[in-house]
Structures are given as C-alpha cells and as structure tokens.
C-alpha cells in the first residue's frame, strides 16, 4: 500500500521541478555531500551534467534529472507523465533504462504506445477520462482494444500479428 504523500513524480514539463541553479545543487538536498551526488549521477552515466545550469538542460537531460530528483527522496511509488515527450532516440533509451532501474512501482501516463509496449507490465487504456480496458500489456495490445479506439497500433504488434506471434520489442 502506497502512502499518498510519499509518491514521487516527474511531470510533462520537467523544468517545473527545478529550484536550484545547477544539477549538483538540486541533489544536495537529498545527499550529504557533492561526492555522493557525483557518484549517484555517475551511476546513471550523467556525471557530465553535474555542473550544468538546470534551466539550460535539453529536454531529455531535464527529463532524466527530473526523474532522478523524484526518486532521490525515496518515495514509495513514482508517477511519470509523458516520459518520452520531446526526447531524441538516445535520450529515450536513457529514460527507458532509468525507469527500468527504479525499485518502486512506476506509473506512466503516455501516448507513446511503442514505449509503453516496451516498458510496461500492465496497461490501462483511458478514453474520455475513463479506464476502458486494463490488464497485462501483451493482452491489451493484442486484444484489438487499441485499434478499436482509433489509435495506431505499434509496429511490433502489426508485425507480430503477421508472424502469428506476440512480439513486444522492436529491434
């Protein structure tokens, strides 16, 4: 059971999360010293961003930092709104790896169906503010629910149907 006040989040505009001028300063609130912060950033291969100005980060970098800040205070769950919005392919992969590494339950709100198919264990499809279908990702994607709502199916699903197999990942 997740306590409501202990949910970390990263929203569509990641820059709203920032309150300090550099990336290191943002994390100092949660770590005892700069070395610990740099070690933490190094674990995610983004130590090079430590001295960068937070409001000058690219969208992808800002998204990564925003998610890392959201998990730094040890929340019991994480909510991420449109994690791939405005991201390049490399940044998308970094966000994907980061979300996979998080040890708490993660709820993602996304229109990026390829990304959802790749990363989610369970999917809940919402239409006009209501959940219309939910369940294990493969069941939902191969159950014709996506196309019946007028959304284009991910290529993995289209190819999977042609091959008669339930493919989840592209590449």
């Amino acid at each position, binding site marked *: 059971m997740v306590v409501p*006040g202990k*949910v*970390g*989040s*990263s*929203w569509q*505009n990641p*820059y*709203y*999360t*920032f*309150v*300090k001028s550099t990336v290191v300063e943002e994390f100092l609130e*949660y770590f005892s010293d700069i070395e610990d912060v740099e070690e933490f950033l190094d674990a995610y291969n983004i130590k090079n961003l430590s001295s960068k100005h937070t*409001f000058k980060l690219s969208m992808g970098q800002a998204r990564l930092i925003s998610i890392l*800040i*959201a998990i*730094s*205070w040890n*929340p019991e769950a994480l*909510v991420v709104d449109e994690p791939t919005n405005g991201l390049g392919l490399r940044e998308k992969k970094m966000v994907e790896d980061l979300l996979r590494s998080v040890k708490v339950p993660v709820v993602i709100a996304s229109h990026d169906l390829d990304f959802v198919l790749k990363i989610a264990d369970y999917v809940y499809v919402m239409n006009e503010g209501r959940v219309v279908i939910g369940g294990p990702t493969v069941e939902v994607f191969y159950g014709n629910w996506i196309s019946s709502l007028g959304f284009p199916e991910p290529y993995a699903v289209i190819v999977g149907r042609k091959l008669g197999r339930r493919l989840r990942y592209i590449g």
Partner: protein
Amino acid sequence: MNIHPVVSFTVIVWVMVALYINFLVSALALPIILTAYLIASLPLEQIRRLAIMYLWVTIPPYIVLTLIYGPIEAVDIVLRLFIIASTFTSVLRLIKPIELTYTVTRLGIPTLAALTIPMVMKLADYMSYSVGETLVALKGRGLRGRKLLINLPVPLIVHAVISSAQLAESLTQKQFKNVGVLAGKSVVRISDIIIVAYVLVSIAVLLIQSL
C-alpha cells in the same frame, strides 16, 4: 484608456521619491487618480477583483501591524503598501504593451529585448496559470510546507521569463524585425499631460516648501 510609457515611468519614479521623502499626500493622490482612470475603463467584474486585491493588501496587514506597532503606525505602513501596490497595478494595466515596445526600441534596445519586456509584464497572468502545475511538480520531489512555498517562486519566475523570451524570439523570426516601427508610435494623450503636470506641480510645491 492608456498612458504613455514614459509617463508611466515618471509616475513610478515620482511615487517612489515622494514615499522616500515622506511627501505622502502627493504619493497617495497620484495612484488614486490612476486607479480612478483605470476603473473607468474596466468592466464591473474586473473592478470587483481589483477591489478584493486591494482589500487583501490593506486589511490583513493592518490587523497584524496594529497588534505589533499600534493603530497609528499601522496606518502609516499600510498606506505605503497601498500606494506601492496601486501605483504598480495601475501603471502596468494602463501601459499599452505595443507602445512600450515602440518606445523601448526607440531608445536603442534590440527588438528581441524590447518584445520581451511587455511579455514579462504579463508575468502575473502566466504565473497564476502555471502555479498549480508547479506545486504538483515540487510536491513530486518531496517538498512540503514551508520549503514548498519558499521554492515555489523559482520555477514560476524563471519560466515566465523564459517563455517571454521564447515568444519574443518566435515573433522576431516571423519577419517582425521592424516590430518597433510596426508596433505603432506611442500617443501622448490628455491624461498623460495631466499626470506630468501633476508631478511638476508636486515638485514645485516641494521646492517652495523647502525654501
């Protein structure tokens, strides 16, 4: 109903000087005139909002200050608060942003910067729009209570300024290179003449008193 950008600047400078030298009568009369001028051009709903805002600026501080300093001292402080709040509110509402852009470009400031200034003036509108989103985002990083409120203005202000700069940038990219000229020349109105005359008379009175 608008006032000339240069006159607005004059008003702000004079009110601040009058407050500094304790010339309260003159400092108070000017924002009252401007508020009356502003109210004449506003619909009833906006007048109501303005009145509520001024009540918030004056009544709660008066109660708190009365408890700390006593009623007379509290009136003096609250009066100054009201003068500052009403001056800036009226001036910012009465300036025509496009005229300000023109005036600023005439002073040699680059078009991009000139466009940014009136947009930054819309700071309050933008901030009220994004305050909810920012609050949620900051709660998402574990900030609560006092810490949350202290940090709230940072992303709000930075975003307002960044958005204004981006909007200005996109406007200049859309062939608005000569926006200063296209913006339209600032017009000197009768109200501007009256305000400037009032400031000059106030200065004259001050000089005569000091002799």
